[in-house]
């Protein structure tokens, strides 16, 4: 008897739950009224940064999350606006010599570090010297090669006094470049060029940047607490010169790694901004909830190892690239507004007057079976073989395995080409790539700075990122010209030629340009900046009144 009662009450309970669930659904599908309210605290927002920033010492920093946090707490000579254009930061203004080699920066004289020290030109000299000093072991040391003698110093050929930057006074910094570099100011906004206060660094030593109280701040916010693997709290810096323009008193950055958990947290008002994966984009769109999209500057592509006896054939490389339906790839796997790649350099990169990819135009069909087959038959003929066997190495994550399966299926159906898929751990794939031990690899590249060179210089003969053994003397010569050309128009003409050569020789087959998506709670009115060069920038966020 008791059991029957129990079953009856369970059944009743589940009916009630179903009815309530149905009510809930009606509420959430109701378009405009459904803004998730967000966190309750006034003048404060909470955003998900997914993971722990491993390193907050700008000199050795390499990962996006760390740069995201740094952007809010340490200000560089220059910063970027919402369109990734350069604007003054610590430097009020600057002059450039006629030959484009010498920059003189005039610094604000009213900025302070959180330890009370003034922000001076010496902080930049210290940080940039550290960046290039081998004992600091910075992965991004090569950024400093832009300075005169940067590379020579890093390789131990000259002393630090030969480096192309010096403090003319506390508030004046002179920088000499190795070559005229039109994108120099853009790179200066990058985190590795952040100033470091020498006194503070000496105080904390190698522990600098490992805790909230083991580093100093000069930016719009200060880090007041860092619970490792859990959350970071940034509070408005009252000493910042623009403090009265900043509305937020507090930014809480939480690290929720599980994407479903993050979405739940967003919906219950624990978080005001989260990133979405493809599935979640579709879910939120079904709810008619506004989803924001930005191009993150990455290109995803197939690398064709040119040491391979089949892939050394250009027509085969083209056949494979053209045979993949890139829009279908995005629709079925990426599931957001990413674009099919019709050239190599990603859309976020600036050209002469417009975005570079627009100036270059479409250099490959997004999908063309006929053309692909034509190239494939030509390749078979030239190689004098009946069939070709190749393998594709990919990561062993769920999404990467899907990528691999899609490519495999497309090549089978559209070309009749069978390829083998080899999934492996991330680090194994990287090692196989760096040892050139692969036929085809599914890879991606994100820009380091806002110039096409950040994509195109990887195909230089012997470049550490040239895993495909591409070598073309004409290409190398053009690269040298790009590096030394002072005339902007000519320089971009050369860059265009580089892009055309790559898309014609096709050592890599571009698949798609990635977009990323995020949602905001109703609490945030405006001011969130998310671009290819500023993954998250919340400095000027305005709240709904």
């Amino acid at each position, binding site marked *: 008897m008791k059991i029957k009662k129990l079953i009856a009450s369970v059944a009743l309970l589940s009916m009630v739950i179903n009815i309530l669930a149905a*009510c809930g659904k009606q509420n959430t599908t109701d378009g405009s009224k459904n803004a998730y309210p967000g966190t309750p605290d006034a003048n404060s927002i909470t955003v998900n940064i997914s993971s722990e920033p491993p390193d907050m010492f700008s000199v050795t920093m390499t990962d996006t999350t760390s740069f995201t946090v740094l952007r809010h707490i340490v200000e560089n000579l220059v910063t970027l606006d919402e369109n990734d254009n350069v604007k003054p930061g610590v430097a009020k203004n600057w002059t450039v010599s006629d030959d484009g080699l010498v920059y003189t920066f005039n610094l604000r004289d009213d900025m302070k570090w959180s330890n009370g020290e003034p922000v001076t030109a010496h902080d930049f000299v210290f940080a940039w010297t550290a960046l290039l000093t*081998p004992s600091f072991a910075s992965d991004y040391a090569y950024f400093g090669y832009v300075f005169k003698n940067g590379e020579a110093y890093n390789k131990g050929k000259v002393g630090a006094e030969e480096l192309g930057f010096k403090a003319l006074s506390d508030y004046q910094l002179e920088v000499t470049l190795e070559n005229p570099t039109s994108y120099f100011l853009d790179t200066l906004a990058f985190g590795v060029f952040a100033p470091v206060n020498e006194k503070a660094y000496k105080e904390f030593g190698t522990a600098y940047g490992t805790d909230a109280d083991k580093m100093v701040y000069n930016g719009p916010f200060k880090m007041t607490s860092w619970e490792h693997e859990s959350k970071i709290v940034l509070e408005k810096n009252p000493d910042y010169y623009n403090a009265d323009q900043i509305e937020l008193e507090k930014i809480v950055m939480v690290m929720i790694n599980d994407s479903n958990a993050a979405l739940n947290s967003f919906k219950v008002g624990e978080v005001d901004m989260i990133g979405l994966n493809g599935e979640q984009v579709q879910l939120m769109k079904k709810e008619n909830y506004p989803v924001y999209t930005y191009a993150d500057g990455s290109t995803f592509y197939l690398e064709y190892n040119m040491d391979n006896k089949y892939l050394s054939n250009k027509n085969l490389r083209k056949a494979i690239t053209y045979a993949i339906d890139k829009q279908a790839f995005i629709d079925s796997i990426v599931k957001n507004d990413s674009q099919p790649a019709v050239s190599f350099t990603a859309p976020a990169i600036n050209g002469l007057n417009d975005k570079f990819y627009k100036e270059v135009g479409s250099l490959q069909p997004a999908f063309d079976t006929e053309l692909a087959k034509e190239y494939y038959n030509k390749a078979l003929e030239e190689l004098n073989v009946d069939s070709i066997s190749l393998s594709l190495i990919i990561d062993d994550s769920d999404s990467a395995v899907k990528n691999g399966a899609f490519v495999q299926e497309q090549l089978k159906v559209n070309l009749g080409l069978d390829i083998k898929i080899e999934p492996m751990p991330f680090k194994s794939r990287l090692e196989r790539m*760096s040892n050139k031990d692969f036929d085809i690899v599914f890879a991606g590249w994100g820009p380091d700075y806002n110039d096409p060179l950040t994509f195109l210089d990887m195909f230089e003969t012997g470049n550490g990122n040239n895993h495909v053994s591409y070598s073309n003397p004409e290409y190398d010569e053009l690269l040298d010209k790009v590096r030394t050309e002072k005339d902007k128009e000519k320089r971009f003409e050369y860059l265009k030629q580089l892009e055309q050569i790559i898309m014609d020789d096709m050592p890599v087959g571009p698949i798609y340009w990635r977009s990323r998506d995020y949602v905001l709670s109703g609490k945030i009115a405006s001011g969130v900046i998310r671009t290819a060069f500023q993954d998250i920038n919340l400095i000027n966020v305005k709240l709904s009144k």
Partner: protein
Amino acid sequence: MIKYIFKRIFYSFLTLIILVALTFFMMRLLPGDPFIGQKAIPETTLKALNEKYGLDKPMWQQLLIYFGNVFRGDLGISIHYNRPVNDIIRQAFPYSFDLGIRALIFATVMGILLGIIAAVKRGTHWDTLSMFLAIIGVSVPGFIVGSLLQYFFALKLTQWTGIAFFPNTGWNGFAAKILPSFALSLSSLATVSRLMRTSMMDVLSQDYIKTAKSKGLSQKAIVWKHAVRNAIMPVITVLGPISAALLTGAFVVENIFAIPGMGKFFVYSIQTQDYTMISGTTLFYGAFLIIANLLVDLAYGFIDPRVKLSEVKE
């Protein structure tokens, strides 16, 4: 007894040393290295990094240096986080321990109770129900239980009622601890209850239980005084490995509920090939497991007077 304990401690040390050495060599066999990334790094940097972490020295020297440091209680600096491994464990472990001990207590108490009920009410609905729960616990993985709990109790319940009974993520306050502890406890609860049921049924069919019954003892007295104490031994045996597993960090549950515990370090340290972190977490887990097993063996002696520890064969 004392001699036995010393002997066990000695063997534990030996086991740990072998564990560390094996881990040390095996992680070096992984393809790739800690510094390889998507972008090529300058050679001067690579050289400096290898020097910084002592990876430029011959392997045997690296191992000796590592042992030396471990004996001084220093697990080194994490290559990925640039913080001392000791600090990372010190910060993360309390969360895992807090979560684990709650799950462990719940799993043990509920598991034993369910097992007893199932055995005593054998063949009834109670038996079916508790074994149904046990099968669910064994067969449904933690990430599904965790996600479902989160979806229904943290998200849907909040949306339906407008009151947040359970926070979705985090580890602040008692309410936040309920769902993750429950999610983590389920599979251990299932193991314990099934073991307890089998063992209870075995004991209940023994002659001395019949004797007790014929003496006219109440059912309650028979179960609690005579049966449970004898039936609990196999459960005590599995508590060693279960507590080591629960207390040192549960990757899946911690990940879903965003609890800053130890779990992720076991997984990510291998993915990032953070050598010092891999060694540190392995050593920590190994030591924990060995201590837990030692405590279990000692507990035998107290629960079952027939067990003489000095006679136990290693």
